[in-house]
């Protein structure tokens, strides 16, 4: 009976039939890992086409732009979210660079947030201040501390969103070096991992920083090296160092690689990823001089004006404030956090176990939420030099391997390991620095299933460690959902890739 009624039903006009949905007339723009038929069961394959996506354009194909659009929409939704003191920091720097002459940039201290990034970033702020003054002239008045009109907030937040285009451009340049059809899915995944990175959303667009553009320059440098233009890559890295000197964490990897690959290369023209290990090559003095001169020129451009004013010492003390203490006010989850925690435990455990007497001046020296030079009570106090030694020690193994095998994959890995070692053992590390480890690792994650697993673990734990940065109840759901969806995204994408 049901079949006859269904036949009668079929003559009815508008039943809810699948055929009434517009049929896919043209391939949708998302690439697919393998050509699968349109009626697949898993949801991720809904976004596949009946043909392989061999017709995607190399630069900025529509899928990547769609990802950028979605990311921008999410960032726009975060416009009214919590802003940390970093917001006022950048407003202050806009004011300083706009209203004061060059020689006062690094001596000005009306606000407690003094300029402590290298000169190129100061110039970047100066550029933005030219627009800021049109939006709201009160932004660039130095004495307007804590000024945060709605125009200011909108302008600064939009500036972060707009400068993220550099990150997009960097990713595009990098994935353009992938070749072949099957790599299109990999390049799409890398684009998603970086453009939609939850860490950047939390740190840049809520807490407020400019890591998007900085990591964009890093990616451009890596892309240049990938294409075989080592000199340009090196120069871009020098520029990056002069934008934010935290990238010194990566300098050893760059130094070793460029020395070995560029200055010793025997005129090999292949891209870095195909280069076999270069044995017994000559030392090409010309390349070495070229690289050295280029880097020196970049630094001269950056520091020059301040050298002329005789402010080198002041600049260096601003850039490297060692008085700030071993751990930041919020402990970065690194080795020194464990070390200090152990110290605290031993303070109380020792007397109870009868090992040593209770020390006299036990204050909340490191857990007080303040920034300052502190000393440990039971365990030996750690001087800055010790942190540097430990960091270099842990970088050494991979740098040795890199020296012997200066290939592109090895270079990427050494970048990640150097960043990681500096994060774990560095002096006064911010917890935000974990983004510097996770982001380059996105590039490695698509290479092998094993790398993918490590990336999943690292990004999940790294993002989890960023959650305390945003502590207002209003953002409670937002931050957890951002992190959860990103981890889920990573998991699903990698699972489809490494099926």
């Amino acid at each position, binding site marked *: *009976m*049901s079949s006859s*009624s*269904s036949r*009668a*039903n*079929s*003559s*009815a*006009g*508008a*039943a*809810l*039939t*699948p*055929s*009434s*949905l*517009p*049929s*896919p*007339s*043209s391939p*949708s723009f998302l690439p697919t890992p393998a050509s699968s038929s349109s*009626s*697949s*069961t*898993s*949801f991720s*394959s*809904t*976004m596949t086409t009946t043909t392989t996506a061999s017709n995607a354009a190399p630069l900025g194909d529509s899928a990547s732009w*769609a990802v950028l*659009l*979605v990311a921008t*929409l999410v960032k*726009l*939704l975060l*416009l009214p979210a919590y802003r940390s003191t970093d917001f006022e920091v950048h407003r202050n720097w806009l004011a300083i660079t706009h209203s004061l002459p060059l020689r006062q940039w690094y001596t000005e201290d009306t606000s407690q947030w003094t300029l402590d990034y290298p000169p190129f970033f100061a110039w970047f702020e100066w550029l933005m201040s030219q627009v800021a003054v049109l939006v709201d002239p009160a932004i660039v008045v130095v004495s307007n501390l804590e000024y945060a009109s709605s125009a200011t907030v909108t302008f600064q937040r939009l500036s972060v969103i707009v400068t993220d285009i550099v990150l997009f451009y960097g990713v595009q340049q990098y994935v353009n070096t992938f070749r072949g059809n099957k790599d299109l899915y990999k390049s799409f995944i890398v684009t998603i991992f970086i453009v939609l990175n939850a860490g950047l959303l939390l740190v840049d667009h809520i807490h407020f920083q400019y890591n998007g553009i900085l990591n964009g320059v890093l990616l451009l440098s890596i892309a240049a090296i990938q294409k075989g233009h080592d000199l340009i890559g090196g120069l871009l890295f020098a520029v990056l160092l002069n934008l934010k000197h935290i990238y010194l964490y990566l300098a050893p990897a760059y130094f070793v690689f460029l020395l070995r690959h560029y200055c010793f290369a025997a005129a090999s023209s292949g891209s870095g990823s195909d280069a076999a290990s270069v044995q017994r090559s000559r030392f090409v003095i010309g390349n070495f001089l070229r690289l050295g001169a280029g880097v020196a020129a970049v630094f001269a451009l950056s520091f020059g004006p301040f050298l002329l004013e005789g402010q080198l010492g002041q600049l260096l003390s601003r850039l490297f404030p060692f008085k700030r203490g071993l751990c930041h006010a919020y402990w970065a989850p690194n080795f020194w956090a464990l070390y200090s925690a152990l110290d605290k435990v031993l303070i109380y455990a020792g007397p109870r176990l009868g090992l040593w007497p209770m020390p006299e001046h036990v204050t909340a020296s490191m857990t007080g939420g303040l920034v300052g030079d502190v000393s440990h009570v039971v365990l030996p106090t750690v001087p800055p030099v010790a942190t540097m030694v430990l960091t270099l020690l842990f970088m050494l193994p991979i740098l040795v391997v890199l020296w012997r095998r200066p290939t592109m994959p090895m270079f990427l890995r050494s970048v990640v390991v150097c960043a990681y070692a500096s994060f774990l053992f560095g002096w006064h590390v911010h917890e935000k620095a974990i983004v510097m480890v996770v982001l380059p690792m996105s590039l490695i994650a698509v290479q092998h299933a094993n790398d993918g697993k490590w990336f999943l673990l690292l990004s999940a734990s790294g993002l989890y460690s960023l959650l305390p940065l945003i502590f207002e109840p209003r953002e*409670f*759901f937002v931050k957890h959902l951002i992190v959860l969806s990103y981890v889920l995204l990573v998991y699903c994408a990698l699972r489809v890739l490494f099926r």
Partner: protein
Amino acid sequence: MRATVLVSDLLIFFPAVFLFCRQILADFTRSKQIAIAFMILLQPGLILIDHGHFQYNCISLGLALLAIVAVMRDWDILGSVLFCLSLNYKQMSLYYAPAFFSFLLGKSLQSAHPVLRIAALGVTVIATFALCWLPFLTSIDSVAQVLHRIFPIGRGLFEDKVANVWCAVSVLIKLRAIFEQALLVRISAICTLLAILPSSVNLALRPSQTGFLYALVNSSLGFFLFSYQVHEKSILLVALPASLLLASDPLNAVFFLLLSTASMFPLLHKDGLAIPYAICIVFFVIVVLHMLNVSLQACQHLTTIGKLQLAAVIVCFSGLHLAWYFYIPPAHLPHANLLLFAVVSCASFVLFAVYFNWRQWQLNGVPTSTHKLKHS
């Protein structure tokens, strides 16, 4: 408090949508079911009002949706209970009552024992009501007081500017000044009745699955256009069944959802939600374009009417918003922009009402022995 809206949304509305897509659209592929569920959940109006403006519509709409699923699956008793719960949660669900009533009546009349079924349904409804109203049934006065609060006739024909026929007519003929309140109540009641009568009669005589969905749209739209003291947020009640029609009539459903959200823009702008409004709409459009595999080539295959519709929607949308931001109304008409929104939205809703009524009449009645909406 926002968490409570989110949680109730997750607990009641989300499962209702998934149930609908799994049960009623069972003949679609799994991925299409998820796609449609995704689109229903992403309707910008509901997100913006519940989580932005702050209301708990998700509970009443979720319960109503569960009732719709139950009734379409021929679990009439359960459906009646759920609908009564939805009604007693928020009296707005009264907008759906004619459709439910006609559908259940039609099905009962066509069943083997009509009187028995009608009696059973009647008992169910009365019992559910009694259970919900138990604390207040102490005296006639308390019942009257509750009713008086729920149906605030004293507030007037309409408040502010709403995309209602009465508001549109009042632009030219000042209804509230000319007629007295009791008369206006009667006029609006009669007009509402006339508006919902065709679709209800059609549904009672020829009950069908898709007809039921169309009838829901028609009855709620009729109430919205002609009823007394309508709020602009009530368009959400019409938007829900319209979104359920995404599977069978995607183009019109999408246009309706977009225009209904736009009709609420003045309210959202007042709440400072202009940017989230834009973003939610863009998100929704992107998802719809992707899920329905729309591209430029597909647009060329649209009928002439389809192309006209698309052009009209784009013109209305952009015109309204441009006017809002750039047109400075003259001093003697300070609310010109609000009125513009209300009148244009009302005109489009009237057109949609005509269209959806026509669609419902076009369907042939089929026996409701199967609950699934089948392939043709």
